């Protein structure tokens, strides 16, 4: 537990430095105190619990972000084209996407990534599937192929899944 709190404090302190940009000893010590206080509170509130430690920013992140950005642009262009098209060719429907291997945080990240790409958004979630509302049938099929799921799985560290058991 102490280890988790220390890691939390460290991450919060980096955030403080990014926010503040002041390097005077007074503000630095105040920042350290604030970070300790917030880390203590988060521990008490069970906020940044062990789940979040599973999301290590490993080497797959630089690979994931450009891929995700391209997907984002593609889906944006697709939806924009449909909006501008005079006939509004849309067939809204709800389908399910399986999510078996993800940790709790991984599920949340996955669902948020689905929502971030226009054309699909997660409407409900349970332990096995995400219900997805999509603007056209094709977009849902793309998701069910599971490319994004695989890539987000690669972001989670392998030790996490064993510790969840």
């Amino acid at each position: 537990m102490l280890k988790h709190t220390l890691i939390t404090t460290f991450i919060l302190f980096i955030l403080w430095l990014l926010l503040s940009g002041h390097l005077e000893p007074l503000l630095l010590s105040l920042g350290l105190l604030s970070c300790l206080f917030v880390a203590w509170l988060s521990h008490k509130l069970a906020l940044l619990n062990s789940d979040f430690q599973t999301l290590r920013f490993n080497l797959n992140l630089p690979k994931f972000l450009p891929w995700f950005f391209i997907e984002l642009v593609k889906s944006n262009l697709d939806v924009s084209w449909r909006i501008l098209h005079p006939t509004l060719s849309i067939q809204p429907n709800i389908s399910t996407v399986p999510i078996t291997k993800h940790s709790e945080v991984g599920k949340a990240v996955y669902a948020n990534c689905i929502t971030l790409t226009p054309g699909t958004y997660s409407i409900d979630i349970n332990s096995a599937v995400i219900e997805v509302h999509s603007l056209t049938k094709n977009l849902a099929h793309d998701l069910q192929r599971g490319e994004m799921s695989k890539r987000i799985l690669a972001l989670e560290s392998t030790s996490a899944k064993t510790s969840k058991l």
Partner: protein
Amino acid sequence: MSKKISLILRQTCNLIIPAVLLYALYVQFHGDYGPGGGFQAGVIFAAAVILYTLVHGREKAQRIFPASIIRIFVALGLLLYAAVGVITMVMGGNFLDYSVLLHAPQHAQHLGIFVIELGVGVTVAAVMIIIFYALDEYSD
């Protein structure tokens, strides 16, 4: 379809609330250099606590921020503010004239402003949280 709060919402809030809490403290301590200060920091801190209450329920929130202790903080902040005024009077200045606190007047001003902003922040945060609790408990 249960009445449970969605997992996504819970996880995101768990990630955001520490950031909001830290941001509140950042605003509290950087009021000298940019926009911000005790009033804003207090409100942001209260917003974080309210967000926690929304997602995890009042019972859980009151286990860590009990109303009885928040009530003490409501008065504590104001007392801290007023105490600075009394101390300056004891040290031979006017009420809330910080320059007598230390030898160098600029440093004394810094110290005085820091302490009273802290008092303002504590009172505002506590007041907003206690008002939210009171309204919410009344709706049961």
